[in-house]
C-alpha cells in the first residue's frame, strides 16, 4: 500500500517535472516543407522555425529556387507540415530509462556476484559448506537467510530483509517453473 502511494507520488512528480521541462522550447517547433523535383530544380527540403500560421511554402522556402512566374506552380507541389516535439520529454525519458536500467543491472550484479563473496568473507567455511549446493544452483539463494540470522538488526531493516527474501523465493519459484520445468510460458 505504502509502496503504491510512493509510486503514485513518484509518477506525479515525474509528470510535473516532465511538464516543466517540456515547456515550449524554441527549437521544438519546425515547419518542414518538402518540395519535389521541378523541371531542372532538384528536390529540396526546407525547415524553418516559424509558427503555425507562417507555415507556408512562401514563408519557408527561402531562397526560392525558381523565377517569379513559376513560384506558384512550384509551391503548389511542395508539402508543408508544422511539427512539434518536446525535446525535454525525450531527454528526461531516456535519462530515467537509462538510470533504471543501470540500477537494475547493478542490483543484479550485486545479487549474483558480490553477495556470495561478501557472505563467504563474513562467515568462514562452516556455513559455506552446508549452503554451497544452493548457491551453486541458484545464485540468489539463502544468502540473506544467513545474514539475517547472525545479526539482530533494527526492526525496519529486518522487515525490508524479510520482504526481500520473500520476493527472492517467489522469483526462484517463478524461475523454476518457467526455465527449468517449463510448465508455464513456454
Amino acid at each position: 500500500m505504502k509502496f503504491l502511494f510512493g509510486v503514485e507520488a513518484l509518477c506525479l512528480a515525474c509528470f510535473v517535472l516532465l511538464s516543466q521541462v517540456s515547456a515550449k522550447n524554441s527549437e521544438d517547433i519546425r515547419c518542414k516543407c518538402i518540395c519535389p523535383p521541378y523541371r531542372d530544380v532538384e528536390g529540396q527540403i526546407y525547415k524553418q522555425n516559424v509558427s503555425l500560421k507562417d507555415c507556408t511554402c512562401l514563408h519557408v522556402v527561402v531562397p526560392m529556387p525558381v523565377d517569379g512566374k513559376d513560384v506558384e506552380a512550384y509551391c503548389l507541389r511542395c508539402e508543408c507540415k508544422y511539427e512539434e516535439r518536446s525535446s525535454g520529454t525525450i531527454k528526461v525519458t531516456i535519462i530515467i530509462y537509462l538510470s533504471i536500467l543501470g540500477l537494475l543491472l547493478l542490483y543484479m550484479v550485486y545479487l549474483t556476484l558480490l553477495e556470495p563473496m561478501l557472505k563467504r568473507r563474513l562467515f568462514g567455511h562452516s556455513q559455506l559448506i552446508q549452503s554451497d549446493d544452493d548457491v551453486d544452483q541458484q545464485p540468489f539463494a539463502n544468502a540473506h537467510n544467513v545474514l539475517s540470522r547472525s545479526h539482530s538488526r533494527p526492526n525496519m531493516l529486518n522487515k525490508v530483509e524479510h520482504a526481500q527474501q520473500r520476493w527472492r523465493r517467489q522469483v526462484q519459484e517463478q524461475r523454476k517453473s518457467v526455465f527449468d520445468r517449463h510448465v508455464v510460458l513456454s
Partner: protein
Amino acid sequence: MFQFLSSLYRNYALAVDRAPGLMENPGYSSGFDGLHHPSDDDDDEMVDIAGATLDFSATDDVPPLSSGGYDEYSAGSSSRAAGMNGSGPTKLVDPLEDPLPGVGTYEDFNTIDWVREKSKDRDRHREITNKSRESTVALLHSVSDAFSGWLLMLLVGLMAGALAGGIDIAAHWMTDLKEGVCLIGFWFNHEHCCWTSNETTFQERDRCPQWKSWAELIAGTAQGPFAYIVNYLMYIFWALLFSFLAVTLVRAFAPYACGSGIPEIKTILSGFIIRGYLGKWTLIIKTITLVLAVSSGLSLGKEGPLVHVACCCANILCHLFTKYRKNEAKRREVLSAAAAVGVSVAFGAPIGGVLFSLEEVSYYFPLKTLWRSFFAALVAAFTLRSINPFGNSRLVLFYVEFHAPWHLVELAPFILLGIFGGLWGTLFIKANIAWCRTRKTTRLGHYPVIEVLLVTAVTALLAFPNSYTRMSGAELISELFNDCSLLDSSQLCGYKQPVNTSETGVDNSLADRPAGPGLCTALWQLALALIFKILITVITFGMKVPSGLFIPSMAVGAIAGRLLGVGMEQLAYYNHDWLLFRGWCSPGADCITPGLYAMVGAAACLGGVTRMTVSLVVIMFELTGGLEYIVPLMAATMTSKWVADAFGREGIYEAHIRLNGYPFLEPKEEFEHSSLAVDVMRPRRGDPALAVLTQDSMTVGEVETLVESTHYSGFPVVISQESQRLVGFVLRRDLLISIDNARKRQDGIVSASLVVFTEHCPAQPPEAPPPLRLRGIMDLSPFTVTDHTPMDITVDIFRKLGLRQCLVTHNGRLLGIITKKDILKHMAQISNRDPDSILFN
C-alpha cells in the same frame, strides 16, 4: 431446546422466501451465509434461520415438506437465536464475526469460482447500499465506492499511456543507437537529431552532420568497405548486448515477463490465477526489457507485451481500492478494460482496443466493462497523444493517410492476399508450436540465454545487409504502407519518370508509372526480406524475452501485399488495354495504390495468425483514417480467417494456451459429443468412492487425514456417509486455513474435536472437547446436475457461469464431481489429444 423445531420440514428455498427480513440481508440470498461480512447485526439471526432449515433435514433423512409451521418456526428461530448467543465460548472465535485472512482466496495456479466471487461482490454492494441510508459518512462511502471503478480506469489509462509513451521514445532511441549516436545530445534518436538541421537533402533525408554513425566515430570515414564492416560489427554488437541484457534481466528478476503475455492474460481473464504474473516486478522488468528486445532488432513487436504491461498497471492499481483488491472477479473486469488500453496505446486505436478486448482476450465482458474500457482507452490514447512520442502528433509510427480510390476488380487481389494471410497464419502456428514444443520438451529449453543470443546473432548477421530487414519492424511497415507520391524519394518509389509530365498537375498523386531500377532492387530485397521474416519469426516468438507478434506478422503481410501491389500496378501499366483494366485504368490514371495492398496484406496476415476479424478491421481503419478501405480489409480478413480455420480452428494464442495446458474453456468452440455427465465425472467406475466430509460426525483428526491423503481442491459435505445427501461444498484451502487457525487460536481444539458444518452442535458428552464450527467456510449453494445431464449442457453451464466445479447427483444422492479440468480432459480426449496435457486445476 431445538427439538421442537425438528418437527418442521421445509424446503430450503421456501424458508428463504418466507423468512422476514431475509432478502435485504446481505449474503444470504446468494447462497453464502454472509460470513465474509463481519459486524453485521443481522448475521446471527440470519444464519440461525438458515441453520435451522438445514438442521431439519439433517436430523432426519425424509424429503422436506413444503407446508406448515411457519409461525411456529419464526418464533422458534428467534428464541433459538437468543439461546445461541448465550451458548458457550465458541462464539468468541466464531469465524462468523472474524473472517480469517486467507479464507476465500485461492492458491497459485488454480481457477477461481466466478459464481462465488460475483455473489460476494453483490453481497458487499448490497451491504453498502443498505448502510448508506443510515448516515452521511456511509452515503459518501457508497458514492465513492460506486465511483472507484471509473477512477481506477482513469488511473490505468494515465499510467499505461505514460508507460507506452516512454517505451516508444526509448525503443526508438535504442534502435537508432545501433547505427550511431547524436552529437548534440545523446538522447536524441536519428530523426530528432536532424530535426532542425538544414543540411538534409531530398535524397538522403535523414543525414545530417550532427548524427554520426559508428564508422564515422571509430574509423573516421563514412564510406568504403571498412566503414561498412565497422558499422556491421557495431550493429551485431549492440544487438547482442541488448538481447543479452533483456534475457538476463528477465531471468534474474521476473521470469514471468517473457513472451507476449496475451495467452496468459487470456487464461487469467477466464479465471486462472498466476501469482506474480501481474505484479510490480513483472511490470518494471517487462517495460525495461521490452525496449531492449525491440531495439535489439529481433523480429518481434511491442504490441502484445504492451497489453501485458497495461494489465500489470491495472492489477497494481487495483490494490488501492478494496472493492477490487478483494474480489478476483471484479479485478478481472478491470483487467479486461486494461487489455483494451494496451491495444489502444499500441496502435493508437482506442475503439479497436475495446473491440480487441471483447473479441480476443476477454472471457466475461458485461456492458459495464465495455463502457469502462472505452473510457480507459480514451484516457490512454489522450495521454499518449499528449506525450507525442514520435514528434509528429501521431500515436503510431506507421500511421498512414491516403484516399486513393479502389476499384471493384481489385477485390480479387485482396482476396488473394487474404488466402496468403490464412496460409501464413496456419503455417506459422503449426511451425511455431512445433518449435515451442521442442523447446519445452528437449534440452533446447535448458539454454534460454544462449538461444536468445544465437537467434539475435543470426538475425543481426542476416538483417544488416538488407536495408528492409535492418530497419525496425514498425519503420518497415510505415515505409510499405506509404503511397509513392512525388515527395517520396525512397527506393520503393524508384519509378521511371514519365517523359511528358503534365507540369500543371496540382496534387502530388501520380499516374501509374513503369518500374525503374530502384524499384527493381527494392523488389528483390523485399522478396528476400519476406523469406527471412517468415523463417526468423517462427523461432523468435516464444523466446524468453518480451516478444509480440503483431508487428512481425504485419510486416510479412505488408511485404507480400506491397509485392503484389507493385505487380498489379505494372500489369495494369503495361496491359491497360485488357478488358479487365479497360474501364478504369486508362493510361495516365492513378488506378492502383501499392500501399493499400500492403495494408490489406498486413491485415490478412495478422488475421490469419490471431483469427481476429472485427477488431482487426477497426484497428486498421483507425490506423489509416480512411473509411473507404473497410470493404477491402473486411474481405481480406474474412478470407484469411476462412482459409486458416479450414486447417485448424485455433489461433496462435489458443494454441499456446493448449501447449501450456492452461485450464481455458474456449467460449468459441462447440461441444458436439453426446456424452453424459456421468461419463465425465469423478470418481470413475472402479475408482475409490468420492472423498466427502460429513456435516457433524467427523473429528478434526479425521478431516486432516482425509485432506492430507488426497490432493483434491475441494470436498463436498454430506449429511452422513450412508445417506450421501448433499449439504454444501468446502474448498481445501479454506478448510486447511481454518483448522490451522483454530488449532492455534481457539482453546480446546484437538484432533478429537468434532468438525461441525451444521449451525448448532449435536449433543455431546460433557467431557468432550469443544467442536470446531466451520459452517462459515462452506458454500451452501454448490451447483449440481443430475447424472444424466448431457455434457453439452454441462459445458454451457461451466462456460456461462464460470464454474469451477459442479456436483453430480443421482436420485438426490451425491454421486460425483465434475471440475473444469475434467471437462478439459474430456474435450482433449474427444479430439484425440493427450488428456494429461491439461496441467492445472
